[in-house]
């Protein structure tokens, strides 16, 4: 099959699914709509696999497929092609997107079974896949931006899917508006890059990046990459624009799994990895990225310690894990960032779907205080969730261990890193172990606190199969990127991922030879503390369930501060939103109502009054007209004679 056809199938299949379901959006049957949508996603996944095989069959240096569909626009020196490029970097992305996407579509068939808007839901889901594929495959920034905006739109539509609940509709709007702030910065970054390079094509930009790094804060490239990063903080929920992601949990749970955990929120990370030579050229930006990533990882994890809503805990966990990815790319560990992106996509999608299964079983209850002891009712969900838990807390040899450890090690070891960054990451890892164990304990273990009238039951096979597949991936995907030190210890296991990506990713400059002892010590420290923290959480929430209450009683002020998310939403509300609303209101009142409206009213009043005055002259009476003529005659004569 020709490459053009393969890529068309990959991208257009979800679009066709969207059109089919979109045109029959009023139908209720989740089976038909879900069948169509899942088939569309599965076809897309098959094409992705075929593309992956093609790529593997190519010689290592020439592994890329470029397809140019048409010339989109030409304005002066700006020339944009609707071009797509597949290379080792984004082939991994499309495998994750379509693979995890297909599983989530399958899960949704059962999850959305009772929903009236099933066809609409699946249409949006397919549209999302289409846009996400455009985002990762576009060979220039503008095509990427099209997908970037498209996924934002789908995210908005799906968060506010149950828009009759005004809170959920508001959450959708919050996500959209917050993303727009980032998108504006993304556009500015794009302008600066275009001014500097005269092109928006990724490959051309990456080839044109000067060899020596620039240390000026005000150079157009530093500013450009900073703006792009601000765009990424919007899409990927980093400080300061992370506030939308926890609220985005208002959407259906599979949506949270697909969009707000596995794929869309990683777009910012992907964008930075895609432009990695450019970002390596601007160490100042890299420093900002690493600090923001580390801080986000810790802050979101600390909020996650206190939340009671199962999805909110997972949401803050997602923000925190995204922080790790940014920490990784910020210290130049792009491979580790992508590796963590991949493992996180598996285990977080697994946990979100698992939480969906729990919520489904609990009749839409999301408060973990009303759960507990679900292990015996939902064995499969519990077991798969358990694997996700082991992966996220970084337990060897599950996938999260490899990727998180690679990030922590490089944040310490890379010339762009710093021990403080490692400390941030390690503290985040300890907190992650605590809140995830807490979540497991409160949901699945201990005594049941389920209300009398709720009878939890295991979910149907359509929901458990995706869980099992994702659990397998979460357990074993880590072996794709075995860190050097472990690989050496186990008999020269290669880091498959790093070798596969070597064409796309520039190595960290001036990276010193790894000190095996240090690496192993650091690894043991972070894993050890995570284990202690997990054991502590187990002790507090399973053995002595009255302990956490006593503890929070002691540090009430601090607990309230964290429980209320550091009052960041309130601070934004007071410092940005309210002033903006007030200013807009006064501008509306003084400029719009009192000036522009009034001015137009004056004009229309004058014309209207003039019209009625003149209309009274034309009354249809012949003699009146004759009178006018006579008066005119007299006046003319008077004028002539008197003059």
């Amino acid at each position, binding site marked *: 099959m020709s490459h053009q056809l393969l890529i068309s199938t990959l991208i257009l299949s979800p679009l066709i699914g969207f059109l089919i379901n979109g045109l029959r959006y009023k139908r209720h049957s989740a089976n038909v709509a879900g069948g169509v949508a899942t088939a569309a996603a599965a076809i897309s996944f098959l094409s992705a696999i075929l593309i992956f095989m093609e790529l593997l069959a190519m010689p290592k240096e020439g592994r890329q497929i470029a397809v140019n569909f048409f010339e989109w626009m030409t304005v002066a020196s700006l020339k944009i092609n609707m071009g797509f490029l597949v290379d080792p970097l984004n082939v991994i992305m499309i495998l994750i997107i379509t693979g995890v996407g297909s599983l989530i579509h399958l899960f949704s068939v059962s999850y959305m079974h009772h929903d009236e808007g099933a066809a609409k839901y699946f249409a949006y889901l397919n549209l999302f896949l289409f846009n996400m594929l455009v985002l990762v495959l576009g060979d220039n920034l503008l095509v990427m931006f099209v997908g970037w905006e498209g996924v934002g739109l789908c995210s908005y539509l799906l968060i506010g899917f149950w828009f009759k609940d005004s809170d959920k509709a508001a959450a959708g709007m919050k996500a959209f508006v917050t993303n727009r702030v980032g998108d504006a910065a993304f556009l500015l970054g794009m302008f600066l890059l275009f001014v500097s390079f005269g092109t928006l094509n990724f490959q051309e930009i990456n080839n044109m990046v000067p060899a020596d790094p620039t240390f000026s804060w005000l150079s157009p490239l530093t500013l450009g990459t900073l703006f792009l990063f601000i765009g990424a903080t919007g899409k990927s929920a980093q400080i300061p624009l992370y506030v939308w992601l926890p609220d985005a949990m208002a959407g259906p749970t599979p949506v949270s799994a697909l969009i707000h955990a596995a794929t869309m929120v990683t777009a910012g990370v992907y964008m930075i990895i895609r432009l990695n030579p450019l970002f390596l050229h601007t160490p100042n930006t890299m420093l900002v990225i690493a600090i923001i990533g580390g801080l986000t990882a810790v802050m979101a994890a600390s909020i996650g310690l206190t939340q009671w809503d199962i999805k909110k805990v997972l949401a803050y966990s997602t923000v925190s894990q995204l922080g790790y990815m940014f920490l990784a790319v910020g210290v130049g560990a792009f491979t580790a960032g992508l590796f963590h992106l991949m493992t996180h996509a598996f285990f977080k999608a697994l946990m979100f779907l698992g939480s969906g299964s729990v919520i489904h079983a609990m009749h839409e209850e999301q408060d973990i205080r009303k759960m507990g002891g679900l292990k015996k009712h939902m064995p499969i969900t519990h077991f798969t969730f358990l694997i996700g838990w082991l992966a996220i807390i970084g337990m060897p040899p599950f996938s999260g261990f490899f990727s998180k450890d690679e990030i922590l090690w490089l944040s310490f070891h890379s010339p762009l890193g710093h021990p403080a960054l490692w400390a941030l990451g390690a503290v985040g890892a300890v907190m992650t172990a605590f809140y995830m164990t807490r979540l497991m304990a409160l949901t699945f273990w201990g005594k049941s606190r389920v209300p009398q009238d709720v009878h939890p039951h295991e979910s149907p096979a359509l929901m458990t199969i995706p869980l099992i597949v994702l659990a397998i991936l979460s357990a074993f995907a880590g072996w794709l990127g075995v860190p050097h030190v472990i690989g050496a210890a186990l008999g020269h296991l290669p880091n498959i991922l790093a070798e596969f990506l070597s064409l796309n990713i520039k190595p960290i400059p001036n990276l010193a030879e790894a000190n095996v002892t240090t690496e192993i010590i650091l690894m043991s420290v972070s894993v050890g503390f995570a284990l202690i923290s997990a054991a502590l959480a187990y002790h507090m929430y399973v053995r002595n369930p009255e302990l956490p209450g006593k503890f929070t009683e002691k540090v009430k002020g601090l607990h309230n501060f964290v429980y209320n998310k550091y009052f960041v939403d309130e601070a934004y509300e007071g410092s940005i939103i309210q002033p903006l609303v007030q200013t807009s209101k006064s501008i509306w009142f003084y400029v719009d109502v009192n000036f522009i409206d009034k001015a137009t009213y004056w004009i229309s009043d004058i014309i209207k009054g003039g019209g009625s005055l003149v209309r009274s002259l034309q009354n*249809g*009476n*012949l*003699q009146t007209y*004759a*009178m006018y003529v*006579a008066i005119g005659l007299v006046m003319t004569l008077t004028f002539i004679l008197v003059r």
Partner: protein
Amino acid sequence: MLNTDIFTQIGLNHYLFLSAILFVIGMAGVLLRRNAIVLLMSIELMLNAVNISFVAFSKYSGKMEGQIMVFFVMTIAAAEAAVGLALAVTIFKRFREVNIRFFEHLKG
């Protein structure tokens, strides 16, 4: 013996005064009377008042154009009277009266 003195004493101004008086009478008729026939007659009066001044100017300036113009005016006046009377007759047939206000019914 006819005293031609009086004729020689009549100058351009006299004709013009006569013309003006007749014109004003005609105009007053047009403005004030309600009967369509009288209206037409008044218009006729105004036209002929103008004719008088044409002829007077023609005589005193020795040029023929004024008198030629009078023929035109008379022709048009005849045509106008024909049309006007036809309208008046139709109005009369319908309303048994030729009051000018009935002409308002001609509005579309």
